[in-house]
Structures are given as C-alpha cells and as structure tokens.
C-alpha cells in the first residue's frame, strides 16, 4: 500500500495554513494526526496533491478550562485529552469517550480537530461534541467564524468547513450532572457498531435537562432532541428511557456493513442508549 506523490507543506501559523489551503483549493488537505487520511491515501482512495501538515502551528495546541468554559485546540491529541487532569475533572465524559477511540498508538497521533473535522461517521468525537453542544471555530481567508457542532455535519465526509478553512478550536461549556459514553465495538481499534453520548441533569429526582447524541448510526452523528426531551421532566424510569430510545430509533439511519444488518444495529443502538442513560443518571 503505497500512496501517490504529493507536495508537502508545514506552515507555522494558522494564517500561513489558510493561505496554502486557499491557494490550492480542493487539491489540498490539512493533515493533523493522519490516522484516517494516511490509510486512505495509501489505499489510493484519497487523492491529495498538497498536504498541509499542521504540526508546527503551536496555537492549535492546548486545553483551557476557565470559568466553566472549555476551549481545546484542534491539534490536541486524544492522548492529551485523556491525560489532562483539569479536563478530566471538568468534563470526565471526554476522557471516558477518548479511551474508547482506536488504540494507544493511534491516540497519541489522533487529534480532536482531525476527528471532528474529517466528517467520518465512524469517528466518536463529532457525536460527543454535539452532545456537549460544542462550537467549532473555523479560520478562513476572511477571518474566523463559528459553527455549532450540531450544524456542522452535512453527510459522510461533507461538513460546513470550506476547502480553504481550518478548524482551529472547539469550545463548549463544562456540563453539569451525569454523563456516559457507551460504545459497542467488535474489538479495540474498531469503529462503533453503535455508540451513545449522554448528559443528564437532575433535580429533586426529576430530569431537568438531557442531551443525547449517537455515533455511526447514520451518515452524520445524530443529536436527538426528541430523545432528550423524552427524558426531561421524567424520573428517568423505564418508560421514559423507552420513550427516549424510541425517539432515537426514529432519528437514526444505520447501514448494513460487516458489523451487522440494520435491524441489529438499530436494536443495539437502543441497548447502548438505555445503558448510557442509566449510567449517566446514576452519576447525576
């Protein structure tokens, strides 16, 4: 498996990177950890003439937790997400989910920005970011703009990012209450058969707010407003969980693959969601 030739660029600033992306248009691709893109290039399924490596742009690194707001640079790796004490305290959901991505070597390389920007429905972070209601900051030739994670994904590998834009950071408010990331996969290193990210707040035994997002069950992550609403006001009993699962199932659109047929995936999606809700509720 040998990739095609390309020209390599290693800009040292966001502006320089954006300039390269602008200059080369759809012939260019930003390179973060590369563990999605490089295998595709080796299989010659991705044709890239200009590779814009972001590793030298220091401003894309880092995790800031301040005043209840979390800001994470796009080039922050999953390994760094797992090992950041402040983040683990503020948003333990991130650590719980990150540990379920790929394998140790890949987590040293794989970045939050790459995972959310690639648009691969198998990636875990997009659903997680929708669950957290994160906002992505994109830098382009005309400056920066923000797009909500819940508005970012259009179809598999199609996102709101323009070819000449760079996703530079992700921002969200540290959630309150309970959390859970439940993922079923065939083995370490696999994408999810089904995965659910859940946040729940409770007060006086009742659910006061909920957020639910599903991974690898459609060509984009699926944030399920109806499923979340089914929980709010309930005591998170079986009936409410059943209603949330039913609402989720009508929002997803899984496809058959080696992990199994649609019927199985739909069923498993319900199981992982119910488990995630229970676990999140127990932590709320």
């Amino acid at each position, binding site marked *: 498996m040998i990739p095609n030739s390309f020209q390599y660029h*290693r800009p040292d600033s966001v502006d320089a990177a954006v300039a390269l992306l602008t200059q080369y248009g759809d012939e260019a691709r930003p390179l973060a950890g590369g563990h999605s893109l490089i295998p595709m290039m080796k299989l010659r399924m991705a044709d890239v003439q200009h590779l814009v490596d972001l590793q030298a742009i220091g401003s894309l690194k880092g995790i800031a937790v301040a005043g209840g707001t979390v800001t994470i640079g796009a080039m922050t790796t999953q390994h760094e997400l797992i090992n950041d004490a402040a983040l683990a305290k503020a948003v333990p959901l991130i650590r719980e989910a990150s540990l379920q991505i790929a394998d140790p070597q890949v987590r040293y390389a794989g970045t939050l920005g790459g995972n959310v920007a690639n648009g691969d429905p198998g990636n875990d972070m997009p659903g997680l970011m929708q669950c957290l209601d994160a906002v992505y900051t994109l830098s382009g030739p005309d400056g920066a703009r923000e797009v909500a994670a819940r508005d970012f994904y259009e179809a598999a590998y199609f996102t709101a990012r323009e070819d000449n834009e760079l996703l530079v950071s992700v921002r969200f408010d540290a959630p309150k209450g309970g959390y859970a990331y439940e993922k079923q996969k065939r083995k370490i290193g696999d994408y999810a058969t089904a995965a659910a990210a859940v946040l729940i707040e409770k007060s006086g035994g009742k659910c006061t707010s909920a957020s639910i997002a599903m991974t690898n069950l459609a060509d984009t992550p699926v944030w399920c407003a109806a499923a979340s609403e089914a929980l709010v006001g309930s005591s998170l009993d079986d009936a409410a969980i059943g209603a949330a699962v039913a609402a989720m199932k009508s929002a997803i659109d899984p496809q058959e693959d080696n992990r199994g047929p649609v019927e199985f995936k739909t069923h498993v999606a319900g199981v992982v969601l119910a488990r995630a809700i229970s676990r999140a509720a127990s932590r709320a």
Partner: protein
Amino acid sequence: MGKMHIKLTVNGKEEELLAEPRELLIHVLREELGITGPHIGCETSHCGACTVDMNGKSVKSCTVFAAQANGAEITTIEGLGNPDGLHVLQEMFKEHHGLQCGFCTPGMITRAYRFLQENPDPTEEEVRFGMSGNLCRCTGYQNIVKAILAAAAEMNAAKEAAQ
C-alpha cells in the same frame, strides 16, 4: 515529485537523507537507514509491528510520512539495548517466552517501553489495554503480558535499590 531533505535523530544518531515526502517512515528506517527491527504487518495502522518511539510517543511508522517525521527524535528496538546490555524488557520477553516467530516483537517491546514510562506499576488489565495497539499471531499475549509485568517489577526494584 522531488525529494526533500530530511533530518532525523535515530537511536541517538543524527541522520540526514533525501526522500520523497510520501515515503513512509517505516520505509525510511528500513530501506534508507537499514534499521530493520520495526516490521510491516498490516499497513493500515492496526497491527503495530512497525511501532517506534517518536518524540516520546509510540507511533505506527507505517502511518507517518517521512516529511512529517522531519526533525523528529526516534527510538527503535535497536536503540533500547545491545548485546552487551539488553533492556530489561528484552530480558523479560526471553525469560517468559513472550515471543515465538519474533515478527511483532520489536514493535511490541518498543511499545511496552513507552507504556512502562507512563505507567511504571501497571495491573494486568492495564497492560492488556496499553498493549492493545500491537497484534501478535503466535503467543496469545499471555506471556507477553507476563513479561511486561515482570519487567515493571524489575525496573521498580532497581529504582528502589538506587534510592
């Protein structure tokens, strides 16, 4: 396309070479520098046979371009020990029969080296999770896990003795 000038520090030695940007790090090491310890097993970043230590992280060198590695500091199995002084992991893999065909072994030991730097006193479960980026087809992992736990114990004992 043209070749680019690449500088690497490999096992403490500075290396300079010309390579196409697309050349994979595993090929740079194996073909250009003659460092054949790391192997190619799957080519899609699943098996870990090509694992090397780059800038203090375990990486799968089949999924890193030469251009990306430019300027990096790399340690391979060849840099962990030598015939006159094996690394304790190398000793323990021998002692506990942690290898059979030997093809995955360099990547396995190189990964274990970094894992124990980060988690010097792991449980069996932590070893299995920490080594889950490396596939072995011969051993069923049981003796690999045993070897790594034994190496951790040895290294900790040596550390204590030194203090």
